[in-house]
């Protein structure tokens, strides 16, 4: 038998592929989204300039104020980095706030403090990673729904924190720990630097490493990933450990900010972190998301709170407005990328 395939005469539908739609280009939608978010951020600053020119129009005032904004964003920001990974992989972690509390308590017990700052830091990180490991095992190998497993952890971890601290606020006088929040390099507090470094590392991990690729893959289609030879279970587990580790880092930040560890720390962080990630363009259904977006999401929230405070708005008004801003922030992006079929679909969800 013989095959006669004349060399492809007319090179098929190349002509038909109209000029590469900007939208089609890889990641460009993310770029657009992030641009939109930066716009929102600038808008907030402008509002600040009108409402509190004394702060936002004096160079030093603005700088000082923004340093505060960043310090406030640090702990939640680090947590959001971990959360972004988890959500991109199609999971969710409700226990971040509680793990932070537990880690902060553990690393400030008299016993721990007696070993000095190094051990305190280690304790926080270890507790965080361990709690994350429990989450991961339950979800990846115990096959629990992430929502439930981490919800359980959220409840238990807080209980444990309370039990250890007996609801006392555990003060630390360790100069090193305290310095993290108070001392600055070029006017930037250490914790802010840590926050930015963690974010940068997160970006590299997600976009430049096989770990990141696997994360996106299992989020996009776990079955396909499995059939491509990716160890979905292991990867899933590691992601929750990562998230837990971030909680540990955040715990150290909070301790250094408040000179103490308490079982009431980090309340409501879970929702804030998830919200920041989603506003940053991460799909709750998994498979898509960016660290930069999440970073912007966190900054926006932090900046909003700051605006409220410097303008002395009462809480009730704050809340009402806050809801509005969230909606607007997202609508702005949707409007830019509205032409995306898959966005539409997931938006329906």
């Amino acid at each position: 038998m013989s095959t006669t395939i004349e060399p492809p005469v007319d090179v098929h539908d190349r002509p038909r592929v109209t000029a590469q739609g900007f939208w089609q280009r890889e990641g460009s939608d993310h770029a657009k989204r992030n641009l939109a978010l930066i716009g929102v951020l600038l808008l907030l600053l402008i509002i600040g300039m009108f409402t509190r020119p004394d702060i936002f129009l004096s160079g030093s005032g603005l700088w000082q104020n923004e340093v505060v904004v960043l310090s406030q964003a640090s702990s939640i920001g680090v947590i959001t980095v971990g959360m972004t990974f988890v959500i991109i992989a199609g999971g969710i972690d409700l226990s971040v706030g509680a793990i932070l509390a537990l880690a902060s308590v553990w690393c400030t017990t008299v016993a721990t403090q007696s070993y000095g700052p190094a051990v305190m830091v280690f304790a926080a990180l270890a507790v965080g990673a361990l709690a994350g490991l429990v989450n991961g095992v339950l979800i990846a190998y115990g096959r629990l729904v992430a929502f439930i497993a981490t919800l359980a952890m959220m409840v238990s971890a807080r209980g444990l924190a309370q039990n250890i601290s007996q609801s006392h606020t555990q003060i630390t006088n360790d100069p090193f720990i305290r310095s993290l929040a108070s001392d600055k390099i070029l006017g930037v507090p250490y914790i802010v630097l840590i926050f930015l470094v963690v974010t940068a590392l997160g970006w590299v991990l997600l976009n430049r490493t096989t770990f990141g690729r696997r994360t996106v893959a299992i989020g996009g289609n776990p079955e396909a990933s499995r059939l491509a030879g990716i160890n979905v279970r292991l990867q899933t587990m590691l992601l929750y450990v990562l998230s837990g580790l971030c909680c540990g880092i955040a715990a150290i930040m909070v301790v250094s900010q408040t000179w103490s560890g308490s079982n009431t720390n980090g309340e409501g962080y879970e929702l804030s972190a998830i919200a920041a990630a989603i506003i940053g363009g991460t799909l709750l259904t998994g498979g898509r998301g960016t660290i930069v977006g999440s970073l912007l999401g966190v900054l926006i929230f932090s900046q909003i709170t700051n605006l409220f405070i410097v303008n002395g708005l009462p809480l009730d008004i704050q809340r009402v407005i806050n809801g509005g801003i969230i909606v607007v922030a997202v609508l702005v992006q949707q409007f830019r990328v509205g032409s995306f079929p898959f966005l539409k679909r997931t938006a329906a969800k």
Partner: protein
Amino acid sequence: MVKTFPGVRALDGVQLEVRAGEVHCLLGQNGAGKSTLIKVLAGVHAPDSGEIRWQGEPVSFGNPQAAMKAGIATIYQELDLVDGLSVAENMYLGHEPNAGGFVARRSMRRGAAAILERLGHPEIPAAREVGKLPAAAKQIVSMGRALSREARLLIMDEPSAVLAHDEVENLFRIVRGLTAQGIAVIYISHRLDEIREIGDRVTVLKDGRTTAANLDAKTTPNRELVSRMTGRTIEYVFPERPAARTFTEAPILRVENLTLPGRFADVSLDVHGGEIVGITGLVGSGRSEVLESIYGARRPTTGTVEMLGKKVRRGDVGAAVRAGIGMAPEERKSQALLLGEPIYRNVTLAGFARFAKGGFTDAGRERTVAEDITRSLDLRPADVRRPVRTLSGGNQQKVVVGRWLLGGTRLLLLDEPTRGVDVGARAELYQVIRRLADEGVGVLLVSSEVPEVLGLADRVLVMREGRLVHEAPAGELDEDTVLDLVMAGSLLDGADLSSNTPEGTAA
């Protein structure tokens, strides 16, 4: 008719004319625009320009509902069922018989049962949750859905793709019944022989344009149809098969009495490097399960899989891949693709680790490698940075196969590799597969298309009810004998598996 998607003109001036009571076939390469066209007809996409005349007067369907009201029912290329609902509910989804919002369940079940009867599958329980049906049964259901509306025009987008031989015959029987009632049918398929058998007239699309309209389906020679589709002439044939060889060196894959209760029982086979082994059988005979078990995607209860003389850990895909086994699974969307991700990342999904240095990926190289592969597969559009979602069915299939052309694969498991792939691309795929074999890769091929197995494979295994019932060099078999083997005598051997079937299907 014109329809553009961001980056593509899917339809670029198409004419189509369908008469009542005829079976009008649509032909075209992957990405020619067939599905898009019928989606426009079905009111899923709004056309950019052009007009639809329905029974004389011009119409425009804003949404699927409008089209259905007008009497256009559609079976889409991709299964469109809701797993959580019962067979009956799926069939009547969107137009449930109801009394004041309350579903008339009994009449719905009865209706569904009647349709299933008509489809020749009374054994599918109308109350069963669709999620629990095998792929084959699902296809029947989505056909039933189309029939559940009394349509004037029935559109079928590659319905036969997932059907086995006898099912196709069955499908044709139904289609003939419909046309006898004066119902028009638009039939899309990449299998020319089907078009010969069922079609009345043919319209050919290429690159979103009509290149030939209303040819006679019976008489127009293949050559012409193909050249209209592809702009070149391909004989629908298979690459040269090296004269029946006797493999001296040990087989690379050796499977010994593998068993997965309820799906297949003590399957033993081996594949040599450079050999293409085809497995054929009815849908549901357990071929996919065998492949999946070899690949470690399922954990067989007994039996061993040896790759290059080393045992491969049971039920561990990672181990299989490391041992040099690759698989192109059956259901590309749910089992193989990251639809939102760019093409190149899908191609390198199983291999990006190999391009990585110390855990850091190398997107640039991945892209160039992927580009070579997609070019060799003649993927279109060729831009590897597009999301796979925007590819046509057949082109998506090429991406799946392409994944294992990165090298490093010693054994390739192909489950229905040419499902939904057009004639031209098929021939190319066959070439690719053969080339791989010549490079020493072993290939284990599952296909419901007997001619394909016979044409491509060196050796053919026939499966029936989860057992290998016959093995012979492809040269010594012809289609009819295979078909007989596939079905005949089943009543006798069928017994031995039925013993462990019940808890099997549970598994």
